[in-house]
């Protein structure tokens, strides 16, 4: 069973997925941060592959990506850092990145190496469904890697159903029409959208991401989905203090009652 499915089979509410950029703040931090997150009680880890032109990302993640690249981070190095991933970490690990570095790495080799190190899914926001279905789906499936699709408030109902059909693991429900970035609250328009999608009774689990920044926004999102994803707010935390204790207490501030 894919580890992502395993998580959702035992946990239907309050699933916490945390994103961080590979090789940030220090180039060798990738595995340390992942281990600390797991120990702190996170359910899913999402590791960003740094890219020079991340068009779906706001300033926080752009900045972490650029610094990681400047320090010498690359997809090749990330795969090496993750060589012993499964000796240390049991929870699902997802790679998030843009299609170009993956194409240069070699798409088949990417899937092969993901499988080898124990990656469960990937999120490639600029790989749309049409291209996925025509050119990439077969390889993803051959290696058992889940491709996670996004939906947004503007995704048509017809398309939401198509995404549900094509999805495995979970659907990444982008909380508002925006790029990534921490926000302080959830608006009424967002709640309307969450409720609209909730009523569609999709067969695939949903995690809400973009703008989730603290306990309040996390709990709010969890009312409408199986859980939520925190990215920029966690990077902001790393910028303030990236010690194991600080990471543990950040996670605690979100999941502890």
């Amino acid at each position, binding site marked *: 069973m894919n580890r992502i499915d395993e998580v959702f089979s035992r946990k239907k509410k309050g699933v916490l997925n945390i994103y961080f950029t590979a090789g940030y703040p220090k180039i060798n931090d990738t595995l340390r941060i992942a281990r600390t997150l797991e120990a702190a009680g996170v359910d899913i880890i999402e590791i960003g592959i740094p890219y020079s032109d991340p*068009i779906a990302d706001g300033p926080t993640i752009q900045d972490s990506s650029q610094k990681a690249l400047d320090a010498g981070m690359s997809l090749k190095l990330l795969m090496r850092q993750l060589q012993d991933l499964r000796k240390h970490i049991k929870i699902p690990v997802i790679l998030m990145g843009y299609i170009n570095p993956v194409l240069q790495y070699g798409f088949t080799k990417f899937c092969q190496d993901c499988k080898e190190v124990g990656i469960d899914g990937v999120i490639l926001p600029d790989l749309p469904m049409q291209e996925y279905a025509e050119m990439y789906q077969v390889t993803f499936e051959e290696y058992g890697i889940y491709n996670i699709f996004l939906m947004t408030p503007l995704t048509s109902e017809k398309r939401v159903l198509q995404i549900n059909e094509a999805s495995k693991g979970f659907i990444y429900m982008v909380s508002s029409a925006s790029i990534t970035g921490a926000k302080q609250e959830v608006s009424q328009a967002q709640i309307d959208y969450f409720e609209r999608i909730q009523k569609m009774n999709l067969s695939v689990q949903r995690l809400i991401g973009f703008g989730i920044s603290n306990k309040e926004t996390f709990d709010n999102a969890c009312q409408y989905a199986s859980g939520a994803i925190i990215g920029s707010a966690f990077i902001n935390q790393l910028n303030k203090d990236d010690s194991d204790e600080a990471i543990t207490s950040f996670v605690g501030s979100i999941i502890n009652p």
Partner: protein
Amino acid sequence: MITKENYKVNSKGYYGKFGGAYVPEMLLPNILELQENYLEITSRPSFKKEFDYLLKDYVGRPTPLYLAQRMSEKYQAQIFLKREDLCHTGAHKVNNTIGQILLAKALNKKKIIAETGAGQHGVATATVCALMGMECIIYMGAVDMVRQRPNVERMKILGAEIRAAESGSKTLKDATNEAMRHWINHPTDTHYIIGSVVGPHPYPDLVARFQSVISEEIKYQLNEQIGRDHPDMVIACVGGGSNAAGAFYHYLDRPEVQLIAAEAAGLGIDNKKSAATTFLGTEGVLHGSKTLLMQTADGQVTEPYSISAGLDYPGIGPIHAHLFDSGRAHFCAVTDEEAMHAGIDLSRLEGIIPAIETAHAISALDKIEVKDKVVVINVSGRGDKDLDTYITWGKY
């Protein structure tokens, strides 16, 4: 031997293996809206009528096709200059911005955003926004804003708001990223006017169609002047490739016409400081389409270099990647130095100071055999904006 093939976009948005729409889901509604409507809207008689009217009475079309006598003597060929430099705002860019703002209006959009490198596309966009009374935001790399001060002021005079792109390398590719991010954040009321045949489908085709007026005019103008509708050769410079796409468009499926694309080699193709994408680039995805681009082995987009800000882009439009890949077009790499000399040459022989982008196309005459041929060179823009660069270079 060139086989008869279709070089235009297919129904899925591809040119051969290049093109497509590699955009995040957040942009997809906008892209789908364009894909589903652009052909219908642009073929409406009312759209065509207004487009043609504005190109004629506002832009000043048709632009002349001028037989350059002294240049022809020098190269022992019949060299015609397609005078896009005489368009309002000084370059071909306005053909596209007129078309796109009419499309934006038909789609009920209230605001316009655009990216710009040298500022030519920004000026052409600010111009049509003033013409239509629409709000206009232009993203420009912070580094380019310093290099292209006069165009920044021109855009401001025209009422546009200029926003500095401070991310990445702070140049054209980053301005494009910022414009795309802005569009993600403002998806419903805003239209993004892309400045070249780049970006996700349908942009490359949309822009090529608006620019195709260039070769449409060349056909009948040549017919009037030499009694046949095609030259032996069309030469154009390629940044993203919009003026070249327009000049090639109606000859794409005419194998008797050689298509020559001049890329900016900067300090040379064996030097890191270059923008010659077909020589130095590899396949990948940039700004929403699969194409050739300059990148590291790890897939990070690299910063190009050219003395000409309008050619200083790390990719080319997917149509050109396909023309290169299929051998339909011949690409040559022109260095800064060669282009500057060619610019002076045209100034002295014909009294036309070209944009430095265009000067790259002129220089191609020295790189290919043109003797006894009928050649059309697309003079994409005038050199007014480049006076500082000519002065700094100084060898005239």
